[in-house]
């Protein structure tokens, strides 16, 4: 059980550090900062385990290389799961916006025409285009949005997988 305990402890430690940093100041590029915090914590945690293990440490310390790899794998997949969930916190999902907008209208309901005026491109599409610029996936050149190599790679990766599934463009 030590692999599970050490892997999840490392993840929880990184989560607490991130939460505290977020309370002090919300970074501009949240996903990138989050990644840096988690991987720095993971490396320091594994080095600390190695140091403690070399100095006695007790039964809870990992002994073999494969145990260190197993702890790293657990920490890595927990971090990736959290990283996948995080954009849902950072940006408002359209379904969430729809439901909360109708909920806020109360018992009298929300007129259909008013609904489409509230949920417009400024609220739902333009912030995501700005995100592409912030994350360096696109650049604005003479009024045109063009992909960077990083953006192209992402588009092609998802395009390839969608065609593998035989699915439409999505969105």
């Amino acid at each position, binding site marked *: 059980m030590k692999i599970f305990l050490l892997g999840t402890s490392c993840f929880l430690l990184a989560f607490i550090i991130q939460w505290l940093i977020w*309370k002090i100041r919300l970074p501009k590029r949240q996903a990138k900062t989050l990644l840096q915090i988690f991987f720095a914590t993971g490396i320091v945690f594994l080095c600390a385990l190695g140091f403690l293990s070399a100095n006695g440490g007790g039964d809870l310390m990992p002994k073999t290389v494969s145990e260190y790899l197993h702890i790293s794998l657990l920490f890595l*997949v927990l971090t990736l799961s959290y990283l996948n969930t995080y*954009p849902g916190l*950072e940006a408002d999902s359209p*379904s969430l916006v729809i439901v909360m907008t109708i909920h806020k209208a109360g018992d009298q309901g*929300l007129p259909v025409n008013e609904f489409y005026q509230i949920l417009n491109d400024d609220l739902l599409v333009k912030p995501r285009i700005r995100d592409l610029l912030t994350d360096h996936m696109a650049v604005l050149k003479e009024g045109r949005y063009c992909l960077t190599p990083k*953006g192209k790679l992402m*588009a092609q990766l*998802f395009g390839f997988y969608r065609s593998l599934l035989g*699915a439409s463009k999505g969105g």
Partner: protein
Amino acid sequence: MEHNLINLMSPIVGLGINVLVQVSGFRFLASLPLLKSLFLGCGVGLIGVTLMESYLHLLGQPSGNFIALFWTNGVIYMALSYCYFHFINMGETARRIRILRELNDSDNGLTMDEILKRYNANDMIRMRMDRLLNNGQVYEKEGRYYIGNPLMLWISKGMVAMKRFMLGKGSEFD
């Protein structure tokens, strides 16, 4: 039996089985919707992980180790499956990915107006409203929308509470 590299393999092999079953199930079983193909892949992959772990146990792993390793590898496998689910879901619903793909399909990039002609809030809301109306989360009466089944509202309230806890605000526009 001492812990070795084979103990790391079962969740990764399980993910491979998951992806293979999900992709082939969705492609070749016409009646299988995307969400169900993801559940099918996840379930078959989990069976694969269980079989591999049981095989390792039969090779002589002490029973205490078996339970601990099965639990740890089960968690790793489910986390990997969750990541895969998110990857598929991003391709299906994420606005950023859709815009990226529209930009990738154009030779010289797109202006804001051109992007909005190809993908805009009206299309996006219409697709999602159809889903919410069809499954009864929202209903329309005399030209007004109301909350129907409160499940989606509870999920949304949970997300807002998590946003407040993590980011100190309930919406990106606060």
